[in-house]
């Protein structure tokens, strides 16, 4: 280990230490990016807790997160974040990125969706005086992060971790895409057929309407028989 790593090499060391972990180092065949440490397959197998923790560069959150390369580009999840202030959002993006990096989930950079701006122009006084008004606005800042290739369970854990350490004032919407087994469509249809939808008023209305029609026809018949 370098006694006092220079500012310039620190990010590269950090990246190497974090993400060229013991398993991938063995697979890569001991490729060295930093001259001081030369990992060997035997050494990787017997890595102690002290050795591993000494390799971790603390304070890595100061740097932007590592974005893992996509293995198959199969989209797995999309997270959409909304907030009234952009500072909290950007801080949360940084955190989310680091969490994904730690879990090995390939994600996109935060995508800046268009900001929604609502404007209200309102008279200052409670009565009349329309010529003096005041403008109020509300901006909704939005960001989106897309995730690829990870296992659904890993994505679930990521989302759970993120929501447990959620930023106040930031809302999150998660869209997940999972693989379903063959015949899932038929299964869903079969399970839905036996059940009635709660709260769909259309069937109730039609049933009532039928009853009303019967009643009216009866009334008509009685009227006819009475007049004859």
């Amino acid at each position, binding site marked *: 280990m370098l006694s006092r790593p220079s500012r310039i090499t620190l990010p590269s060391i950090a990246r190497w230490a974090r993400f060229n972990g013991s398993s991938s180092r063995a697979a890569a065949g001991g490729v060295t990016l930093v001259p001081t440490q030369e990992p060997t397959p035997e050494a990787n197998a017997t890595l102690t807790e002290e050795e591993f923790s000494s390799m971790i560069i603390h304070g890595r959150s100061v740097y932007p997160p590592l974005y893992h390369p996509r293995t198959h580009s199969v989209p797995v999840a999309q997270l959409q974040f909304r907030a*009234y202030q952009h500072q909290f959002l950007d801080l949360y993006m940084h955190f989310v990125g680091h969490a994904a990096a730690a879990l090995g989930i390939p994600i996109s950079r935060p995508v800046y969706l268009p900001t929604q701006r*609502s*404007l*209200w122009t*309102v*008279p*200052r*006084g*409670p009565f009349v005086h329309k010529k003096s008004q*005041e*403008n*109020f*606005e*509300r*901006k*909704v800042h939005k960001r989106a992060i897309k995730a690829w290739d990870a296992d659904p369970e890993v994505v679930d854990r990521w989302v759970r971790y993120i929501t447990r350490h959620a930023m106040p004032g930031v809302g999150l919407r998660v869209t997940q895409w999972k693989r379903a087994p063959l015949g899932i469509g038929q299964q869903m249809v079969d399970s839905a057929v036996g059940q009635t939808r709660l709260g769909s*008023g259309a069937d*109730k*209305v*039609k049933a*009532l*309407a039928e*009853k*009303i*029609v019967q009643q*009216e*026809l009866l*009334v*008509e018949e009685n009227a006819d028989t009475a007049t004859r």
Partner: protein
Amino acid sequence: MPNARVLRDIKARNVVKANEVLRRAYLYVARNETLSPQVRHQAQLQLNTFGKYTRPTTVKNRCSESGRGRGIISEFALCRYQFRLKALKLELPGVHKASW
């Protein structure tokens, strides 16, 4: 104690909710061109007997603070002056004075 008009509006909302399905059924019969005109007419007459609070047009948005019927901003359920007072006190989330 809210405004008399607010109370009327609350009553209207409750009654409309209770009668909505019935009203729609009668409307369906009255507007259905496949049925005979006598049945449709009967249904329309029945509809006319319903009270005014069953009609959804009696429902009107009112300010939740002052009970004002005009100048309502639906998102906050406030009239424009109450909206301004709350916005200046920063009681409405995300709303601030605009300048650009």
